[in-house]
């Protein structure tokens, strides 16, 4: 029994089948990559996990509890965090505030009416936030507007925002998309470091095979809304079905 169990999930948009009968199990404390060509349904699947979309059929369970019908913030509170393809941060706020918000969410839950408390008086939150900023080497940028940061910094900030919540499952949607090779490698190192330090499960959607093979313990190949193969990285290389999916039948 994996930490995340996806059973018979299908999703249609109008007449278009985005997902059909997907079964997937992510083991606890593993790094599981989902790869596939464009339009394979990777993003749709991810959206079904975080509550943005509701599958037409099937079930999604996280640590034995169904995720279906739950709102994104509820799913997050259960321990699922998501990193987006383009970093989703609070660009109008400072870096420090960006970090503090998930700290509050982690401590106080989805809603807390603390309109008369002062942010500056929340010592525990401040300390946690400072610690994590130090972790990601951003302490000197704490008063910067998040919008003013470089793309790489935004990515790291977003990652940090997810990590302060101590998620059990971290969903990464193309975490290195659009990055230079050096940045990609830094990200890989960062993710490896995270993995070493914490008990955390990761599900990565990725195009860059270099990233996938550097990190993943299991790989699922998705094509046309259906999982084709689920294998270890070693076994996936050269797998005929994978080649078929990526290169088209003509090549086979």
């Amino acid at each position: 029994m994996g930490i995340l169990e996806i059973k018979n999930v299908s999703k249609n948009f109008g007449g278009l089948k985005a997902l059909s009968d997907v079964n997937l199990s992510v083991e606890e404390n593993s790094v599981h990559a989902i790869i596939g060509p464009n339009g394979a349904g990777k993003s749709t699947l991810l959206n079904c996990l975080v509550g943005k979309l509701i599958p037409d059929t099937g079930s999604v369970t996280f640590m034995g509890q169904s995720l279906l019908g739950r709102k994104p913030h509820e799913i997050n509170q259960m321990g699922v965090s998501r990193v987006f393809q383009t970093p989703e941060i609070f660009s109008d706020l400072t870096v420090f505030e960006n970090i503090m918000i998930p700290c509050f969410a982690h401590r106080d839950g989805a809603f807390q009416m603390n309109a008369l408390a002062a942010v500056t008086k929340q010592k525990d939150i401040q300390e946690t936030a400072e610690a994590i900023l130090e972790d990601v080497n951003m302490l000197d940028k704490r008063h910067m507007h998040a919008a003013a940061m470089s793309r790489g910094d935004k990515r790291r900030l977003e990652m940090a925002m997810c990590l302060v919540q101590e998620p059990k499952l971290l969903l990464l949607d193309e975490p290195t998309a659009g990055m230079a090779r050096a940045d990609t490698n830094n990200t890989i190192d960062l993710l490896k470091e995270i993995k070493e330090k914490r008990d955390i499960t990761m599900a990565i959607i990725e195009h860059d095979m270099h990233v996938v093979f550097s990190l993943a313990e299991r790989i699922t190949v998705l094509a046309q809304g259906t999982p084709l193969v689920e294998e270890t990285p070693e076994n996936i290389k050269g797998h005929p079905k994978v080649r078929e999916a990526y290169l088209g039948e003509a090549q086979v």
Partner: protein
Amino acid sequence: MLGLNKKDFQLLLIVAVLALLAPFILNPFPEGSGLAQFNAGYPDLMQRFVIFGIFAIGFNILFGLTGYLSFGHAAFLGVGSYAAIWMMKLVTLNVIPAILMAIVFGGLFALIVGFVSLRRSGIYFSILTLAFAQMSYALAYSVLTPITGGETGLQIKATDSPILSNLADGEIGRANLFGMEMGSSYLMNVGNWLFTFNAGYYIAAIFMLISFYVSIRIFRSPFGMMLRAVKSNQQRMNYTGLNSRPYTLAAFVISGMYAGLAGGLMVAMDTQVGPERMFWTASGEVVLMTILGGVGTLIGPVLGAGMIKYMENIISKINDNILHQWFAFMPDGIEDFLVTIIHPFIGKGWHLTLGIVFMLVVIFLPGGLVEGGQRIAGWFGKGKKADAEATDTDAGTKPAE
């Protein structure tokens, strides 16, 4: 100090001092001088400054922090007013219960409207709030006449005898605070100057200071930070495990309560209500006040409210007669010429002046009047810069896209 950091406390202190000394500050010109026309230190206008200040502060908590633009906030002010006057007509002429009632009803109505309207965002939300307010206005004007008095509104009449107030037969009750009437004033003559210290104004000013203080606390609280997060990126907020709906609803209700408080104070200061208090132009006015002063800044909305109310009450009262008095020392030809030039902008032309001010401010001071203040402070060098900076905040409350 009071749970505020140094800068905020300084700002609060400045506002408190300004409010306390308003009768002096707003009456800079001696009685009988030509410029006495520009004096604003009389009870009605001073009361309006702080009451609309409260209204705008509350509106800014919603609009400035969450970015949700309500176009129906006057409805809460109106509901608060009606609640307050009924309280005075039926229960007691003491203003405190009336004001509390106004806050409660303003908040309750905001809860209902907000619960429905916050299901949508952006312009769809604005139109929903507008629709609720316009319905309230239309009904109050017509079919709800038995409750609202319709066009002629509600006043306290000789026939009203609130159960907790001992009125002589046929005496028209007056709003009071434990016996102190809102209208009572203390006059001070200093040379040619005449200063009025009005009980009602100071009571309203105290409410304004409390409101301002609470608003600073909200701005600096985790709750306030969450509201800014809503404005910045609602998607990230939801994926961070935060439920944005209760946050926005709470902000909406709080700002509805502020509006109710303003409505209650209006009744306390001047015991009457009319439905046009809820018309869309009244909702639009508070939007304009907030933007004019500076969206998302602490003091901006108060400045904006003051500016609009000053134009409405001072510029509109200048007539050609007064112009002739001003320019009487000049040769006739030049006098007439000047009067002709200025004539379109004063008296009945005050709307024109207001429109021009709106355009000038938004073109030259994109951050509103607060930005103007900052620039002026900037010219005066570093020593005074702190004051103006305190008005904006270092917590990133600049007006955002």
